[in-house]
Every structure is written in structure tokens, then in C-alpha cells.
């Protein structure tokens, strides 16, 4: 038997009233990938995830998750996946251990392996010595780690992580990243994560789909995506930039104004920096860097992914999605 894709979507669409929140999505995710859905808030990432995890029904199209149809085989899909929500979904009045124990019962994990499974996943996320504490005494990062551990207990073929580090402090974020990488390497589980943090997608994913307004605008490895930019970025703040002259230089790929600075895409910025500085006129400040996914996003959508903080939680969004859907 040939290896089937972990996930394949066929014209997957979700409409809320007349707006296509997810618009005709066609996507193939192979087994063992760490796949990122990257996009700004409201791009349709979470809605896509909700459809793939059978929590909401698509308006049109469908998808296969581990070979099961999300429309017709919801139970089988759910059994074969693990989910870590954006909002906490562990019971804070129970201990970490009790949360995992309940998970084992819900997923019918055989009694004789439950204890060893719990020990194994707790070890993976370094929570062994906190397992007897109530979850309400956990920090945000610990809680997220517990939920990641829980999502793994029934050995899902695909693990969905919705904004896995949203609302975590930088240290906790680093920590969660470490575990996700460890998972991908040791457990060989397919991971699909949504994020609006460039850095996160860049660091964790082997392929990224950039999503904007419900559509995939680009899909490739982080390296290839960045190559699309075609060079490094020089940003110059200048009172009267001579943009026309810059545009005439043959090594300059692109010139545009971003936030009151001139953004110049240049092949081999270090070599050509002097020439550019000579040409542009009076310079207040200069900043040179390699392209990031943010530039890629800018390139495709004309807007930046900005961190506007917490978007409506998963729960809230499904609830409002429901009313709107009716």
C-alpha cells in the first residue's frame, strides 16, 4: 500500500454569511511533516483547523484526515488526531495526573498501559513532579505543556496545535518550542500548527502555507519562501530619499516606502551598501538584514502580520460562527 497523505483537503470552504472565511482550500500534508499555517488574525487558520478536527462542518468541499473523511467519519477522525487548543481545555480543579487519566478513559486506552503512558508523556514535557498539583496552580506554559502531553497520549497520527505559544512569556515559549521539536523528532508524529508568529513558523515548520483572507497565498519551505524575496533588505530613514536614482541601480530588486522608511531589496546587500548610501542622499539611519517570513508575507499580501494580541478565543469564535451560520 502506498503511503497516504496525513491530510488532504479538497476545495475546503467555510462561509459565514457571505464571507468565505476559508476559501476553496486545496492542501496536502504528508506524514511526518511539521506543517505551519501562518497568517494574520482572522485569516482563517483556526477555522481550517476546526474543520479538520470535525468541530465545525465545512460549507463546501471536504478533507481526508488520516484517510478518513471529515464529513462522514467524524468519530474515526477524532480518534486518530490529538488537539491542543488555543484556550486552555484542561480542568483546573483537577490535578495534572487526573486530567491525563480522564483522557485515557475517553480514548479507551487499555488499562494496563495507562500508567506507563501517563509517565511517558509527563516525562516528555517535564511535568512529572507537578502531576499531583491542581492545574489551577500551574503557570500558563505548564498548562500548555500538560495539554500537549495529553494530546499525545492516545498516539495520534496527527497532532494539531492551535497557536501553541499564544499568550506565553518568551521563556515559556522557548520551552514549548523545544518540546514540539522533540516530538517531531522522537515521536515522528505529523504536526499541524497555526501561528501568527513568524519566528515560530520559521523555527519549527518544514513547510509553511501563508494564509490570507481564507486563501493560501504561498506554500513552501521557509528557506524557499524567503528566497522569493530575492535578496536582503536594507531599510533607510532619510529626509529626502532619492528614490528614482535608487531604482535605476541594476542590483536593486525592489524599492518601496514602509512606515516612512525606504525599504530596498538588494542582492548582496553588504557589497552594495556603500553605493546605495551614496545614491540616496542624506541618511538618518540604516538597517540591513536578511529576509524574514514577514517580508514574504508583505510581498504576497501587501500587509504585515502584526501582533495585535489575543484574537477571539477558539470557543468564542465557534459560538459566534454558529450564530452567524444559522
Amino acid at each position, binding site marked *: 500500500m502506498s503511503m497516504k497523505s496525513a491530510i488532504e483537503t479538497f476545495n475546503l470552504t467555510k462561509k459565514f454569511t457571505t464571507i468565505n472565511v476559508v476559501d476553496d482550500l486545496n492542501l496536502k500534508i504528508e506524514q511526518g511533516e511539521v506543517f505551519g499555517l501562518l497568517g494574520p488574525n482572522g485569516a482563517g487558520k483556526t477555522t481550517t483547523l476546526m474543520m479538520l478536527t470535525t*468541530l465545525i462542518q465545512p460549507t463546501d468541499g471536504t478533507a481526508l484526515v488520516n484517510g478518513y473523511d471529515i464529513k462522514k467519519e467524524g468519530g474515526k477522525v477524532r480518534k486518530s488526531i490529538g*488537539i491542543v487548543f488555543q*484556550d486552555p481545555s484542561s*480542568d483546573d480543579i*483537577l490535578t495534572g495526573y487526573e486530567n491525563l487519566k*480522564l483522557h485515557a*478513559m475517553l480514548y*479507551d486506552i487499555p488499562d494496563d498501559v495507562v500508567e506507563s503512558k501517563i509517565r511517558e508523556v509527563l516525562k516528555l514535557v517535564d511535568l512529572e513532579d507537578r502531576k499531583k498539583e491542581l492545574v489551577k496552580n500551574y503557570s500558563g506554559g505548564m498548562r500548555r505543556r500538560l495539554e500537549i502531553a495529553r494530546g499525545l497520549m492516545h498516539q495520534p497520527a496527527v497532532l494539531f496545535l492551535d497557536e501553541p505559544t499564544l499568550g506565553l512569556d518568551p521563556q515559556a515559549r522557548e520551552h514549548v518550542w523545544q518540546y514540539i521539536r522533540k516530538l517531531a523528532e522522537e515521536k515522528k508524529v505529523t504536526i499541524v500548527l497555526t501561528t501568527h508568529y513568524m519566528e515560530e513558523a520559521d523555527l519549527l515548520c518544514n513547510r509553511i502555507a501563508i494564509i490570507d483572507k481564507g486563501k493560501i497565498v504561498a506554500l513552501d519551505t521557509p528557506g524557499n519562501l524567503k528566497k522569493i524575496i530575492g535578496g536582503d533588505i536594507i531599510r533607510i530613514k532619510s529626509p529626502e530619499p532619492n528614490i528614482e536614482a535608487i531604482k535605476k541601480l541594476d542590483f536593486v530588486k525592489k524599492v518601496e516606502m514602509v512606515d516612512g522608511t525606504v525599504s530596498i531589496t538588494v542582492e548582496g546587500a553588504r557589497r552594495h551598501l556603500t553605493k546605495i548610501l551614496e545614491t540616496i542622499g542624506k541618511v538618518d539611519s540604516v538597517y540591513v538584514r536578511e529576509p524574514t517570513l514577514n517580508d514574504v508575507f508583505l510581498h504576497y499580501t501587501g500587509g504585515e502580520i502584526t501582533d495585535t494580541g489575543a484574537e477571539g478565543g477558539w*470557543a468564542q469564535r465557534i*459560538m459566534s460562527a454558529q450564530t452567524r451560520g444559522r
Partner: protein
Amino acid sequence: MGAKDHECPNKRKIEMGELKAIYAMWYREIRVFFREKSRIVASIINPLFFLLIFGGGLGNIEGFGAVGGQVFVFPAIVGMTLLFTSIFFGLYIIWDRKVDFLKEVLVSPISRLSMFIGKILGGSTDSLIQATLVLVLGVFIGVQYTLLSISLTFGFMFLATTILVSIGLIMGSRMESPEGFQLITSFVVFPMFLLTLFPFDKLPLYLIPFAYMDPMTYAVDGLRGAMIGANYFPLYVDAVVLAVLAGIFIAIGTYAFQKMKI
């Protein structure tokens, strides 16, 4: 060929899985219940006041038959305890499905029927424990329990709480925010309770149809019959009506749960 051999054990395995899931849901509710001790204390304060003030006051008024006002209202107060704890337990899923364990349950492979049954069992266990505490108060106002009356009482209480938790869950699964709580308390919970306070045959004519529609009428009537022998309908009628209602509400509830998203 081989498929047929596999079908049976497979099916049994799924059913076992569902039973385990129901147990998991029940276990969770019980754990939470015993950890929130203030709730248990609060839940018997109200019945106590009702019994002392309301029952005490009615105790001096004629017309409640041989047993007297205070004893006559006592089953209604037990009913009230069931009513309030059960309905509000059900309504609580408005929060539950946003933040808690229920979200994790909704994405698990268990069926919505098992989910609903698990919730009912959890809620009715909570309510029954609280109602049992109230039953103990009965001893002090002169209710005499026998093994039979206690068994019948628990039977009726279980049927009642199944219906009431279902009603709460159904409403809760349709509601978007807890703002409707006050409305439900005013228009559903209180009328359901108040109608049970008085002897059925002493109700004014315009209230009779409502009393017939109120599931609590049959629950409290059953409890009155079981505890103090002051029932209006034959006990088997109460039991059958309650059992049928329980079945209907479980069916509606399972449907509501199927429609419910997180």
C-alpha cells in the same frame, strides 16, 4: 469473509469504550463536586430557610390535610433542592464548553449520547447527595422514613433529577451567554417549584393546566406519596409520567448535544 468475524468483538469494544467514557464524565463531576465544598454547604442553606420560614409559617394554616403544612411542603423543598441544583448544573455547560473539560470531551471520539448520559449521571449524583442532606432535615420535623419509603423516594428523586439535568443541559447547550440565567430562573425554575407547594386539588382552575405540564408536579407528588403518603395521583402514574419524560428529554438532549459545537 473475515469481516464478519471481526464485527462482533469490535462492536463490543466500542460499547466498552463508551461505558468507560460515561464513567470518565461521571468521575470528573464527582471529583469536582467534592472539591468545591462551599457549594455543598450553600446548597442546603436555602432549603433550610425554606423549611423553617415557609414551612413553619404554613404549619399554622389549615387545609394541608392530616400531615400539616410543614410536613406537606417538605417534599416540595426536597424537590426544590433537586430542581435548583440540577437545572443549574445543566446550565453550567455554557462555561463548561468554553473553558473546561467539556471541550476536550467534544473532540474525543465518544458519542454525544454517552456524553449526555455521563453529564446526567454526574449532575444527578450531585443533586442526590445534596437532596439526601435535606432528607435528613425531615427527621427533625417528624417525617418517619422506612426502608420502602426511602427506596421509593430515591427512585423518584433519580427520575426527577434526570429530567431536570436534561432540561438544564438542553437550555445550556443552546445558550450563548449566561445572561439568560435570570430569565430562566424567573420563567422556568421558580414557576416549576412554586406550583408544587400546594395540594393539587386546592389549586385555582387557571393554574391546573400549568400544574399538569410541570414535571415537578409528578416528581413532588411522587415524593409526597413515598414519604408521607399524601399523593394526589397514583404513584405508578407519577412514575410512568416521569420515566416517559426522562426518555423524551434524553432524546432531545442527545440531539441538542449533536448540534452543539464548542
